[in-house]
């Protein structure tokens, strides 16, 4: 694993338009190496669109993205090599067994020692007992953790997780939080969520977006006001302009 001294994720004036609708509007932020950052916002705020642009699934309408110093728009494949991504809803090949799926994904990501990588990621995601089970027959919580194991398979320096705990039971949520906290200082994590307690529990810093614009960038411990109050104030008040 390699963490560079530069910013690991650098986003400058990123915008994305769907037809006439501006889903993401001139968002800029940076994530330091080893930092765990929460990406907060109400439904439809542009969280998933932003993460999809970071991971190369969508092209930005304008703006720049640098992943580990690499221009993610021009050198998308090289940038993607640095990332582990767990999309919202965790789409998986349902007909495969868990280890077959991870072997396939490991091969796609050119992981050198796949058998070892599968064992490691299954253990980390707490899903080793489901190794030989068919993905389509797993509960939502298990599928979620298989998605996490997949994101970890290539031991990437950067993890991007979109709503990673939806569908997990309280014990699984706790395990997930401990796992993400254990990455602190080792991996850079950007996770989106609308569960404030989760973000407060695991993140070093929080970026709040609303209607496609960044309205806050703060550390949960920085302020006396609770994150819940800040979130409510920023995401229900009038125009997001200048609220940051």
């Amino acid at each position, binding site marked *: 694993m390699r963490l560079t001294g530069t910013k690991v994720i650098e986003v400058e004036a990123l915008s994305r338009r769907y037809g006439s609708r501006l889903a993401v509007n001139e968002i800029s932020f940076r994530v330091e190496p080893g930092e765990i950052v929460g990406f907060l916002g109400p439904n439809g705020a542009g969280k998933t669109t932003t993460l*999809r642009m970071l*991971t*190369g*699934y*969508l*092209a930005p309408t304008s703006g720049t993205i640098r992943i580990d110093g690499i221009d993610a728009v021009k050198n998308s*494949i*090289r940038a*993607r*090599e640095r*990332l582990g*991504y767990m*999309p919202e*809803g965790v*789409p*998986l*090949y*349902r*007909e*495969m067994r868990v280890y*077959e799926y991870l072997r*396939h*994904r490991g*091969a*796609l*990501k*050119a992981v050198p020692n796949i058998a070892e990588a599968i064992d490691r990621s299954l253990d980390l995601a707490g899903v080793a007992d489901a190794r030989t089970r068919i993905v389509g027959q797993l509960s939502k919580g298990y599928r979620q953790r298989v998605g996490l194991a*997949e994101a970890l398979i290539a031991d990437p320096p950067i993890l991007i997780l979109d709503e990673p705990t939806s569908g997990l039971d309280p014990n699984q949520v706790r395990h997930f939080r401990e796992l993400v906290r254990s990455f602190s200082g080792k991996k850079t994590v950007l996770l989106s969520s609308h569960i404030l307690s989760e973000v407060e529990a695991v993140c070093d810093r929080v970026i709040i977006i609303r209607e496609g614009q960044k309205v806050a960038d703060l550390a949960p411990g920085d302020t006396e006001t609770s994150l819940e109050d800040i979130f409510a104030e920023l995401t229900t008040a009038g125009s997001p302009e200048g609220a940051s």
Partner: protein
Amino acid sequence: MKGAWVVLKRELGAFFVSPLAYVVLTSWLIWNGVVFWVLTEFYSRNAVSSGASTPLSGFFGGSALFFIPLLVFVPVLTMRLVAGEKQSGTIETLLTAPVSEASVIFGKYGASLVMWCVLWIPTIIYAWIISQHGSVDWGATAASYFGIFCLGAYFMAIGLLMSVVAPTQIIAAVLSFVALGVLFTVGIGEFVLDGTAREVCAYLSMWGHMQSFSKGVVDTRYLVFDFSVAVLAVGLSVGALKARKIG
């Protein structure tokens, strides 16, 4: 291109663990078994002395019975290639892995060609059956299979393109059916039209294509056509998959 090989293996694995593969293969063999039986009966009752037309040349594109099932089976085989990933959402994990769109398309196209070959390989037994009771022109038979492969290369490329542009598998299947149906019908213009239009239709004709190959004549005009359509459709598939990012 290692990514293409990984995609190809996954595609074939998914196909052969799905009930669809066995429904398709079984119905395909039942259909062709009946066609072969009817043709053999016909030729045994109406002795054809010229030697240019045999049960095998009839089987390999000598009748509409060859093309009708293809208009259905090709869309069924290709509809899930990319549209299936869109419907299940797995396209997002696939396209955020460090592989190019071209690798994804080449892998999927390669898998569709293997499926096409798997459909046809069992029919070799028909040639063997004929050889047990009469003579078989193995050169013409080999040319027929070569023609079928070339035809498949262009059919599958069209099916793949439709699967890339369609949002769902059903729409992909309908679009492929219409595209192949139009190409098939245009070929019939060879027997209806005159002059340049007739020439163009003859060049596009699947029927003419297979009639030529089934007699052992490997006509390079048809090869150029098959190859051109396949390259165009696969290239457009790569382009359409890239364009999805900005859509």
